[in-house]
């Protein structure tokens, strides 16, 4: 793009925009929002839905505003009667091949197709005919595919390949019989899907959804207290996003309200996954220091993000020795609940039901992994609800969330440092680890607290920190295409990295596949959304007294009372895990 400015008219209003601007953005400058479905600013141009057509003088056919760059003297009509009818007809054509079940659909009220149909005024159905029929595909632990609801906008296909580098989804068949799915339309469970749920996040309709765990949670909540002791834990990232589901401005922290809501719903105990996060840092920092000392298996790769872990097992199995063996915060906490806490309360672990509230759909998959179960097969985590699912349950219960008083987590597994809160944003795990590692490396009690090098929602950040006379090369990546870049660089050799934080979702957990759908005038994956959500977490951290994980007194107490040494036998057994190469079928 050169610095040249282009003059054009949109709906008779002259406007000047830089050369290379696309019409859809030029119109936005005039405050005109052109309707769209397949277009997404972070993904490549698809030009498939055709909803954004506009009339350009001199052309017999209509041009799509998403793809057309402006030119000098262009004369554009965005709302002529012809255009209005064309857009209405296109959306109607989409509706004609779509199940008419809005009232019972998960996305009712939050569906982009529904929104466009309303906005464009589809009031009658002229063309209805044959409709496609596909079964719901729910083989995956995390993601449910409902091809009947798919409008073939291709966003999931693009996010899966362009942002996540997985390329599991593609369009198959042709014409009216086109359907999106894994290669050869195999089950999601048999595919290379890493369960990150970004397809769910970008889908304009309900063609991709998380696997529902709400029913099983309603069920245990209704059971007598002496039969099931229902324990819930909430992930760091959800406190920055839950408010959005209730109309609060983006980036409003609502930790206390969530705790109160959960208690009202009947959860017996409300713990904080943050505790698990602090514990993770203590174990992981220890692991890091050991590796720094021996020089083995560097760089250390973080392992909190189950989507990233799946990705590594499928696409980079050779990096498994580099991955931290630490369980994710959720799994550490769940393991403690069913051992330490059960013992303390004198409960049979089988009578405890652990629910995780997570920003992530891959956590549902993680919870079901056989490594995360007790010896008798009882899973440490029994159910995982996404932010969206819990939001719906709160609404369903009839709780006036916005006006709830703040509640406090139960003790002892509810105490946490600010380092744990920032786990939810990209760079947060790194910063938390550095806070502890810096202290351990230097031996000074008051090490640095803020590492601006790793803050911000860009996809790939690198820095070299000078700690105790050593150069520590670190990298932070989110979105797995970025992970590919950094891992390929590691494999190539050259620069020696020491610590790399990897998160599957673009922006980190705050942009996880289970987070509330943005309001209909926002794009999913919008970096501004990520920035606001991250800010909420950093604000919480900023206000806390306790800023370093290893300073968490409850953690210190836990080691004394139960775990023994850091990375000792018991800690290793309960807090660490292992990974296995899991290549797609047909590849050994």
């Amino acid at each position: 793009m050169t610095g040249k400015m282009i003059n054009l008219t949109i709906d008779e209003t002259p406007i000047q925009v830089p050369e290379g601007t696309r019409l859809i953005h030029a119109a936005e400058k005039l405050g005109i929002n052109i309707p769209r479905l397949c277009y997404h600013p972070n993904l490549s141009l698809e030009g498939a839905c055709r909803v954004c057509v506009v009339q350009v003088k001199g052309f017999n056919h209509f041009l799509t505003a998403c793809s057309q760059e402006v030119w000098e003297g262009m004369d554009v009509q965005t709302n002529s009667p012809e255009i209005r009818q064309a857009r209405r007809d296109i959306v109607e054509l989409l509706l004609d091949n779509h199940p008419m079940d809005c009232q019972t659909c998960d996305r009712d009220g939050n569906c982009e197709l529904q929104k466009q149909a309303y906005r464009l005024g589809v009031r009658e159905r002229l063309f209805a005919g044959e409709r496609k029929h596909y079964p719901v595909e729910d083989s995956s632990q995390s993601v449910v595919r409902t091809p009947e609801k798919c409008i073939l906008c291709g966003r999931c296909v693009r996010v899966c390949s362009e942002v996540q580098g997985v390329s599991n989804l593609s369009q198959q068949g042709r014409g009216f019989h086109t359907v999106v799915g894994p290669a050869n339309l195999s089950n999601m469970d048999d595919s290379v899907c890493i369960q990150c749920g970004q397809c769910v996040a970008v889908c304009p309709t309900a063609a991709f959804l998380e696997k529902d765990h709400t029913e099983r949670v309603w069920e245990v909540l209704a059971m007598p207290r002496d039969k099931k002791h229902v324990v819930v834990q909430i992930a760091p990232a959800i406190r920055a996003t839950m408010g959005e589901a209730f109309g609060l401005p983006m980036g409003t922290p609502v930790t206390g309200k969530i705790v109160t809501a959960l208690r009202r719903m009947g959860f017996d105990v409300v713990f904080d996954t943050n505790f698990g996060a602090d514990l993770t840092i203590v174990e992981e920092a220890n692991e890091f220091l050991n590796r720094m000392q021996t020089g083995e298996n560097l760089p250390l790769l973080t392992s909190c993000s189950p989507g990233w872990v799946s990705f590594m097992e499928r696409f980079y199995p050779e990096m498994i020795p580099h991955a931290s063996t630490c369980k994710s915060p959720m799994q550490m906490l769940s393991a403690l609940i069913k051992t330490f806490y059960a013992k303390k309360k004198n409960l049979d672990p089988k009578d405890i039901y652990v629910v995780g509230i997570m920003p992530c759909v891959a956590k549902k998959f993680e919870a079901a992994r056989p490594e995360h179960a007790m010896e008798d097969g009882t899973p440490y985590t029994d159910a995982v609800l996404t932010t969206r699912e819990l939001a719906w349950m709160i609404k369903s219960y009839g709780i006036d969330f916005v006006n709830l008083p703040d509640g406090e987590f139960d003790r002892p597994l509810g105490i946490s440092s600010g380092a744990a809160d920032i786990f939810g944003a990209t760079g947060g795990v790194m910063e938390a680890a550095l806070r502890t590692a810096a202290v351990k490396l230097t031996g000074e009690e008051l090490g640095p607290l803020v590492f601006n090098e790793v803050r911000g929602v860009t996809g790939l950040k690198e820095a070299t920190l000078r700690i105790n006379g050593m150069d520590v090369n670190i990298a932070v990546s989110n979105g797995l295409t970025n992970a590919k870049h950094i891992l390929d660089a590691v494999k190539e050799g050259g620069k020696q990295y020491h610590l790399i934080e990897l998160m599957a979702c673009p922006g980190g957990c705050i942009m996880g596949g289970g987070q509330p759908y943005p309001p209909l005038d926002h794009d999913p994956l919008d970096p501004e959304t990520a920035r606001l959500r991250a800010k909420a977490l950093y604000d919480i951290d900023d206000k806390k007294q306790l800023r370093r994980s290893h300073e968490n007194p409850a953690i210190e107490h836990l080691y004394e009372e139960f775990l023994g040494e850091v990375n000792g036998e018991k800690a290793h057994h309960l807090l660490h895990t292992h990974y296995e190469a899991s290549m797609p079928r047909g590849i050994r």
Partner: protein
Amino acid sequence: MTNTVTEFYKALTAKVDETLKAQGDYGKIVIQIGSATCENAAGAVDVMDEFSKHIQSSGREDIVIHRTGCTGRCSKEPIVGVHVPGKMPVKYERVNRDVVHKIFTSHIQKGLPLAEQILDGSIDPDQQLEFLFCEGRRCGVDAPVSYREIFERKLKEAGVGEDKVRITAASCFGACQGQCGSRAHVLVRPLRTLYSVSSEADVDLLVQKQVLKHEEVPSLKVTDKPIYQEFFDLYGDVSFFNRQSRVAMRNSGILDPESLDEYVKFGGFKALATSLGKNDPEWVINEVLKAKLRGRGGGGFLTGKKWQMASQQPEKTRYLICNGDEGDPGAFMDRGMLESDPYSIVEGMMIGAYAIQACKGFYYIRAEYPLAIKRIQNAIEKCRAAGILGDNVMGSGWSFDLEIRLGAGAFVCGEETALIRSIEGERGQPKVRPPYPVVRGLWGKPTAINNVETFANIPAIINYGGDWFASIGTEASGGTKVFALAGKVKHTGLVEVPLGTPLKKVVFDIGGGVQDDLPLKAIQTGGPAGGFIPAKWADMEVDFDPLAKAGSIMGSGGMIVLSDEDCMVDISKFYLSFTQEESCGKCTPCREGTTRMLEILEKITSGKGELSDLDRLERLARLCQQTSLCGLGRAAPNPILSSLKHFREEYIEHIVEKRCKAKKCVALIHYEINAEACIGCTVCARNCPVECISGSRKEPHVINQERCIKCGQCFEVCRFDAVERV
């Protein structure tokens, strides 16, 4: 550099002459057998086998079999030519093993051609001379009188009858270079002599000397061999052929498609040598620009302009693609050229590649064309071995290579962006343009994509000049266009005519008129995405712009003739079912819109239509036309829109009267037995699959309409025309 290329070409031609001389086939009787997928399917392989057996057992050594490509005379294949030196070349139609035996024993051994088997009955074997008068668009048009008529009169005066000398009005031979004014060219067969006449005295001279004394007239003789002459020498007697102007198909049916030597003998690679010899890619682009050659794949974009744009890209790694993913039902122009003249396509492509300075070229040919693939592969290998392709092309220092990629049978892959994706190994779906492939194409590099026929024209343009090529066509587009003539026309096949030729001329002069001499109803051009040109517009000149104006397209060149026996609603439904089936599924209007339009058409043809359906149909058609992503979707509604425009009353008839005049829509017809014509033979009753026909022997039969499934079996089997379709 210039010298090395010239020397290379000289050495190449010298070597070819030597090789062909060494074969010693000159002066022998030549049995020419067409060999392309269509000819082979019609039995050409058997025919060739039978001829070899006959030659072997006869022990004669003065007979050779010459395999050629396909001339494009589909309904009469396999075609066999027998060329006895000094005699009129004779072509036989629909030859099979029995006919081979007859040809061999009668024509070859006894010198008595088989009159009943001669192609289109075109020549009388007794005729010794044939005078073809060039009556192309320009030639002789300024002459105050028709030289042909003068010649006819003078022959009559001299007492020479039609049984001895045959006179034919033919199309241009390409000799005039567009400046013949009051001259006319006359080709004398089988002498292969071309004369140029410009006065009555000249004509008189021809009669006196050439006809009466069998002497040549050196003063009138034209020594340069024009582009079409070879074709007219061989095929000039057949009206299907002698009204055509074969530029792209100049070698089809003349040379062996697998022999590099023959291609070189007929001037092959001269154009490439010329282009390389100029050492100036821009010169090539300028010639092509001058030629006003427009893309023959259907888009009609100026080829020279496309090449110019590609050549101006800052990126130096550039590609050239030959689009041979011909998918229109009933269209086989590209296959014909790939199979019959593969070297021309290779040469055309190399010239194009040189013009845009591409490093690599790809053939994208649909996998359903195995013979075309084999012949292109053969041509590539032979060219490589001869130093024409690969490193240091013809000693010029420029390197270029070709590769074949196969299309897996998706119609949409003929669309350039989808084609590129397919080569890249992605799902063959169109992409948003711009960026156009010339800017960012295959693997993100500048890529020019041209159709097979476009490339076939290139060597001719270089050899005969861009101006010459431009003079053949219309003001806006130069040259000729190959059409696949089919439908209700007497002579079907590949037809190449100058752009600007009236449609009527193609159908009636070349195609021989409508089958069964029924009235012409419409001409459908451009394949499934084309539109209907009603009979009242049959005077229209074929060219990109007039066709588009009339609501159709040139497309890749399908031309289907429709008679009163065709139902426009039914045919629109047929085409739409094709585009619906082949829609890639990417954009909404095409994927969903074609399905809904098809549903409406099905409703109408099954007698359930309502008048409001027409509005909905039109609304969807316009939507699809205006908002689809690629050309396929934008053109898909053309059959509907043009039939609604010109034949709306037929739709109304289907909807209001529930009647299909052409009796094609099964739901709107029924079968009845005419009691007077029925003799009670029981054949219909015995053939009825649902046993709904009753009647005793020798008594008129009756169809039970309630049980009848309208399969039409009774109609087919009745020998007394007693079953009527009502």
